[in-house]
């Protein structure tokens, strides 16, 4: 663990990313305390530039506080990013583990299925899914998960494929342990590092996807989100640039931080591959 931390620290970008991420997390936690009102509430005169009338980041076309919107939206973005990644990991790990461990026809079938999902343009699919199943936080999370699992399956399958013929796995097989037990307790723990690296990048991609969906008006109508704020400010950008610019900076910083942390994790977990900075196919 100390060794891991030492290698992580060596990547300055990763440390910066971690610091930003902690600040983003704090914003999410402190939002209800610093802005103890609904982000939808009218707080003053519309179209106030940043710094005027107590609006740190200005007010929007309905006199709502942009800073409060961003702060309240943080939790939504982080939650959607996190939960959809967990769901995508569950799908991806299950399919990848089965394909890699079983091999043969099962492997073929699973990989065809995965390839198919990689062919379909993922953003268009996410838009169609959310539109047809009506926009809500659940449909958004599910749609993002459905378009994000294929890379996980590929990575997990490759790991399982190479680990299943190793001696400790064969030993467990000889001992008569069940397949599921072998997959979960013997192979999976040894395949964790690439999954961890991949998942930090997936959270980043999920946050981008969520913001794009709510920008198009497919966000949860009851929740304030960064993408929605940018979409709302789009038509009045000549009048009030701050409405779209600040939420965008929030998205940018969060996603950048997650990518940087992902690279740091990659360096720390795969020291041998550190030079070939992971280019992850999303």
């Amino acid at each position: 663990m100390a060794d891991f931390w030492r290698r992580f620290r060596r990547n300055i970008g990763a440390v910066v990313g971690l610091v930003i991420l902690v600040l983003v997390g704090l914003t999410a936690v402190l939002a209800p305390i610093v802005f103890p009102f609904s982000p939808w509430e009218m707080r003053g005169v519309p179209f106030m530039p940043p710094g005027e009338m107590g609006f740190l980041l200005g007010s929007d076309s309905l006199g709502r506080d942009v800073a409060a919107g961003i702060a309240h939206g943080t939790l939504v973005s982080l939650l959607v990013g996190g939960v959809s990644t967990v769901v995508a990991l569950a799908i991806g790990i299950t399919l990848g583990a089965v394909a890699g461990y079983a091999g043969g026809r099962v492997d073929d079938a699973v990989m065809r299925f995965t390839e198919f999902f990689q062919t379909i343009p993922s953003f268009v699919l996410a838009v169609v899914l959310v539109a047809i199943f009506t926009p809500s936080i659940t449909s958004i999370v599910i749609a993002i998960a459905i378009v994000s699992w294929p890379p996980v399956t590929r990575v997990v399958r490759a790991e399982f494929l190479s680990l299943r013929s190793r001696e400790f796995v064969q030993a467990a097989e000889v001992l008569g342990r069940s397949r599921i037990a072998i997959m979960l307790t013997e192979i999976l723990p040894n395949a964790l590092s690439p999954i961890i690296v991949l998942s930090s990048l997936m959270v980043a991609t999920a946050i981008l996807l969520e913001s794009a969906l709510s920008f198009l008006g497919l966000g949860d109508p009851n929740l304030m989100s960064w993408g929605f704020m940018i979409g709302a400010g789009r038509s009045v950008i000549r009048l009030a640039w701050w409405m779209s610019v600040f939420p965008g900076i929030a998205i940018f910083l969060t996603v950048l931080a997650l990518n940087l942390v992902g690279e740091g994790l990659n360096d720390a977990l795969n020291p041998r591959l550190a030079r070939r900075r992971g280019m992850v196919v999303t």
Partner: protein
Amino acid sequence: MGAERLLRFLAQRLVKAAIVVLAIVVFQFVLIRLAPGDPASVIAGQSGAADAEFMAQLRAQFGLDRPMHEQLWIYVKGILTLDLGFSHRQQLPVATLIWDRLPATLLLTGAAFLFAISAGVALGVAAARRVGRPADSVITVIALTFYATPIFWVGLLLVLIFSVWLEWLPSFGMYTVGADLTGLAYALDVGRHLILPAITLGLFFLAIYARLARASMLEVADQDFVRTAHAKGVPEGRIIRAHVLRNALLPVITFAGIQAGQLVGGSILVETVFAWPGIGRLAFDALLQRDYAVLLGVFFCTAVMVVLFNLITDLLYAVIDPRVEVA
């Protein structure tokens, strides 16, 4: 590769592409069935604007009174004969709507792709030649930045800077409305309108191609044949161009093929920001009007575009690199 082998390869890929397209149609059918409400109400949208006559027509079109496998067959047959349904809102067949908008999208994605791949590879090569030095770090930071920025936000910022503040470029549409330009003047006008959307769409991919080109340049630079060239005294510039770049480009091209879908998906956002009259904007308008027949049509169209694009990349690859197996 011999002509016969190439033909066999082509036939195989065509069959595979056809199967994928069929799978997409079946997938769409399943999607409509899984949605809440019956397919007619899904297609008609939830705004309640559809009249009873239209609903009845839709139910008949889907054959909802017949067994499931017959419904599937009706649906597949419809789409494969390019009958993508009817847009009740626009009073036009979906296929016509898409067909009218497709050239604008192809122009936009094509321009964005050319910009992304040329600038991206140039940046990646520049970074790889200066590994570890400040220029490399700067290029890596640029790539990371664009990789983390929402594409629609980049578009809005560019509009803000180049249209609102500097007033250099138009921010809206594909040509100047009412100018009635023809010939070269028209082309120049479209070109001016194209700059901002194409750059917006291209920047994200530029970041990816730059990182990919950098990594693959570094990998190839380590190999024996490059060392041999150095030992033979081949000038540095020529080694980069003739030996390293040539081999390093293959993974970039492969990846570009895989990414075709992302490019088309991104065009929904970019066309929305810039009111570019392509199928992305069509999809956005369909979303606003809950016109799901059009939305599904756009989905099918983009998926087929990706399949076609992958087919072309596969073939290019087979022609360029004789080692590619016919599998």
